């Protein structure tokens, strides 16, 4: 089953984020108050490990599981969309205490009120799609 590896990766992701407490509203609140190193440690070590892994992929020309070359595309250059969009995202992240990954994971922990947040996030994405061409990027 070709989707099994993705489901298992998701399971692993969900377990790590719950066990690290990165899915906790309290941890996000504490992070933005600079009162704990915990979240910075998680994101920091994730990025350092990630940089090493991406460099290894590039240096060794690692092939994907299907034998095709791995290409990691660069992000488009801009400032406006990243700064404005990022700030809007940050407002929501701190209020809901969850970014998109944790939203799904928290449903699994039994927080069904999170489905309201997910529905609202889908609505937010939809409205972005409607306004996309009128917004500065």
């Amino acid at each position, binding site marked *: 089953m070709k989707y099994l*590896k*993705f489901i298992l990766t*998701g*399971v*692993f*992701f*969900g*377990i790590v*984020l719950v066990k690290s407490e990165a899915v906790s509203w*309290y941890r996000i*609140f*504490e992070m933005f*108050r600079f009162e704990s*190193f915990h*979240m*910075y440690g998680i*994101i*920091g*070590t*994730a*990025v350092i*490990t*990630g940089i090493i892994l991406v460099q290894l992929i590039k240096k060794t020309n690692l092939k*994907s*599981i299907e034998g095709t070359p*791995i290409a*990691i595309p*660069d*992000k488009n250059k801009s400032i406006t969309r990243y*700064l*404005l*969009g*990022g*700030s*809007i995202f940050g*407002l*929501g*992240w*701190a209020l*809901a*205490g969850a*970014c*998109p990954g944790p939203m*799904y*994971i928290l*449903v*699994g*922990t*039994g*927080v069904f009120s999170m489905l*309201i*947040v997910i529905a*609202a*996030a*889908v*609505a*937010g*994405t*939809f409205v972005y*799609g409607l306004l996309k061409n009128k917004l500065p990027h």
Partner: protein
Amino acid sequence: MEFILDPWPWYVSGPLIAMVMFLLIYFGKTFGMSSNLRTFCAIGGAGKKSDFFNFKWQEQKWNLMVVLGAVIGGFIAHFFLSNPTNIDLNSNTVQILQSFGFENTGKTLLPQEIYGWDAVLSLKGLLILIVGGFLVGFGTRYAGGCTSGHAISGLSNLQIPSLIAVVGFFIGGLIMTHFIIPLIFK
């Protein structure tokens, strides 16, 4: 077994999150959870309203499988791999939340004052969840990614745009935490 049942330290969790990104790259994909929100719109027929949702969402099924797995992973971790322990929060954080009227801070993953049904079924509580979710969904697509796409994947690939996005995440997060949340709960 205790080291699995207790909360995991940051220096274990961070590298494991990078492994998730690595696995998805190795599978020929990318690590980005917010893209699924766009896929949900496309499945719901949003392509009729905006070209932004006119794409073959079937090609994104793999990412929906990651979402499905994440839900299962959350279930397994919470109900089978966790000792009932309080989150070890800074006492200043607990104090400020107490002053907002939050009780039992850190006893559960999420505050009952926001996610409990009593709160959700009040107009104010419902608005908090809707506004919070909407800003996440709108902002993440505007910025072209969320924590996984920019903060983890983008920074790992040394992308300046992702760094700008993360600065944005913090501008918004700091304004919400220090100025708006105190207004909402005082």
